[in-house]
């Protein structure tokens, strides 16, 4: 193997950039799985849905995919709130959330995927934007704008989420739901309403993450499957529901994957990242910045 400093630096930089994107993809799961303990395994499917919304807006009206995604967030929020309501009535209220809830989200995953396949077929779709294509050359580092733009917006998204969680009343209530629902009820706050809002926000992030995904790579309905494992890996690694932990874990995973892909070939990348996850689960199940 030829070791080259250029290659190493470029691999680390692209790992960090792609890690930023992973963080955006995972932020929704950190909210739902990390804070609310809802194993929303269908989250990647909603991300693909977000990709398709961005694609439709881009192909028919020529709107920038990220702006389209921001416009679509209220729709996704409502979708998330509705899904939570169904989940709450059908499973959580009866205390059957663990196994049957999982099956419910598995079902949602397949239904979303198949619906997209029926409407759009299995062809790869992509979007047009001015920043897709050009590359910044900073010395020996090459930064494709196609990855840099989603990276920057992802960080912005996570910063906003973190501000909401720590500074607003609703955000603090969401954090409190994770700790003690009964106490929340004693404070005259309805935990179900708070959870509904939190789950809505979690699905709303999928709209943006979907737009990032379709900017970075062409998308077809079952692409999301590749992200199920990765997303939960990052969430657990980051310490379940800690957004700073999620960002750190996402970048770590991005760097590990990118280094493996550069020096041993892309086909080894998943084994390394998931081996990493298995190790974390076996040694420190609380994750990096665990509660």
């Amino acid at each position, binding site marked *: 193997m030829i070791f080259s400093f250029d290659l190493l630096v470029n691999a680390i930089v692209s790992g960090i950039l792609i890690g930023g994107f992973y963080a955006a993809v995972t932020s929704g799961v950190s909210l739902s*799985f990390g804070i609310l*303990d809802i*194993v929303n395994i269908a989250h990647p499917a909603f991300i693909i849905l977000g990709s398709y919304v961005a694609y439709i807006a881009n192909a028919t009206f020529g709107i920038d995919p990220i702006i389209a995604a921001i416009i679509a967030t209220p729709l996704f929020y409502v979708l998330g709130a509705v899904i939570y309501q169904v989940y709450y009535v059908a499973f959580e209220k009866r205390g059957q959330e*663990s*196994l049957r809830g*999982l099956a419910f989200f598995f079902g949602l995953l397949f239904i979303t995927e198949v619906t997209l396949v029926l409407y759009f*077929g*299995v062809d790869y779709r992509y979007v047009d934007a001015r920043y897709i294509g050009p590359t910044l050359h900073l010395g020996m580092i090459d930064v494709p704008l196609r990855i840099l733009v989603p990276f920057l917006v992802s960080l912005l998204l996570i910063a906003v989420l973190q501000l909401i969680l720590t500074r607003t009343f609703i955000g603090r209530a969401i954090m409190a739901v994770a700790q003690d629902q009964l106490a929340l009820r004693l404070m005259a706050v309805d935990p179900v309403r708070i959870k509904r809002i939190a789950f809505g926000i979690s699905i709303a992030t999928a709209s943006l993450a979907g737009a990032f995904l379709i900017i970075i790579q062409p998308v077809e309905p079952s692409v999301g*499957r590749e992200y*199920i*494992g990765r997303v*939960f*890996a990052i969430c*657990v690694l980051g310490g379940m529901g800690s957004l700073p932990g999620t960002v750190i874990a996402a970048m770590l995973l991005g760097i590990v994957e990118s280094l493996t892909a550069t020096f041993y070939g892309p*086909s*080894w990348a*998943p*084994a390394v990242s*998931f*081996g990493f*996850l*298995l190790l974390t*689960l*076996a040694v420190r*199940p609380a994750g990096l910045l665990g509660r």
Partner: protein
Amino acid sequence: MRTPLFFLMWLGIAAVVFGLALSSGNDYVFFAGYVVLQYVVLSTAWNILGGYCGYVNFGSAAFFALGAYSTVAIYKFITENEFYRLPMPVLILIGGAVSGLVGFGMGYLTLRLRGAFFAIATLALAVVLQTLIVNWDFVGGSRGAYILRPEEVPLIGSYIKYLFLVMLLLAVAALVIARLIERSRLGYGFATIRDDELAAEASGVPTLKLKLIATTISGALMGMAGAPFPYYIGYLQPSSTFGLDYAVNSIAMPLIGSVAARGLTTDQLSSRIAGLLRQGYVRDPHVAVEVEAYRPFFILGEVTQPGQYPYVANMTVETAVAIAGGFTPRGYKREVIISRNYGNQAYRFKTPITAQIQPGDTIQVEERWF
């Protein structure tokens, strides 16, 4: 009902099913029935860990694929070393042993992980196993592996009938094993783990031992369901085997039989296959055809390493020369001579080095004059 009676009852049902399938006189029944039976075994196996013990395993496809790939590995080993071909029951036992071993390893994950965490860990385990198989060239890697199945089996007839019978017996075996577990101390132990692991541990139930038994049996049964699969499908590929969503392809494949591909382009071939599938089997088929290996091209004359090389799609003379180690210092770099066959006619022509070449071409690089 007593267990021996239960066993005899299912054996009787199996005999009736096989008899009915035989009387239909149509091989399609066997192809479709095989998939159904395979899922009977898989879900019974999953239930031993997921249902009795309450540990959700998302990696069932991986255990299935492990069984399938152990068969492929044995097949490759036997064809390369020209050993005696192993009978199917032995292959099933080996596949079960391999998956059971991995299941045993997975059991140790339950030491620290419960609920959703265990489910995620099994998901991760499946991805790691898939990556290992993708990178293992001996069993075909990501390209997949072909398995030629024997045409006939003595006493039974066509091979699919034999496979169906094997899977039928396996399904009966799986049901009986599940029943035995359910009615034994083991089953009660599993139930205590499912209901309250901490309380079970406190009352002296050896939870780790029981969980290891459950993961091993469950994994082994899934591997056994997977072991005959390569002979059923004929072509095994990691992404579809680990995805467990081959159900459609596996039925479509035997339905349309063989398709003549000679002389067709990939587009023509895919529309022909789509046409055959549309005749009553699939409503709106999407077929993609890719060439897995082209005929090689030959290059001789003034290149560093003349010889025969594999063809890659959209190759030009320039890339061909590069593959052959580049021009020698005396090579003429503007034009080369290509010999090509169209039908039965051979042609020779001069062409610039940016021209595209085709599989089977012979490229001759001439000497410079000056």
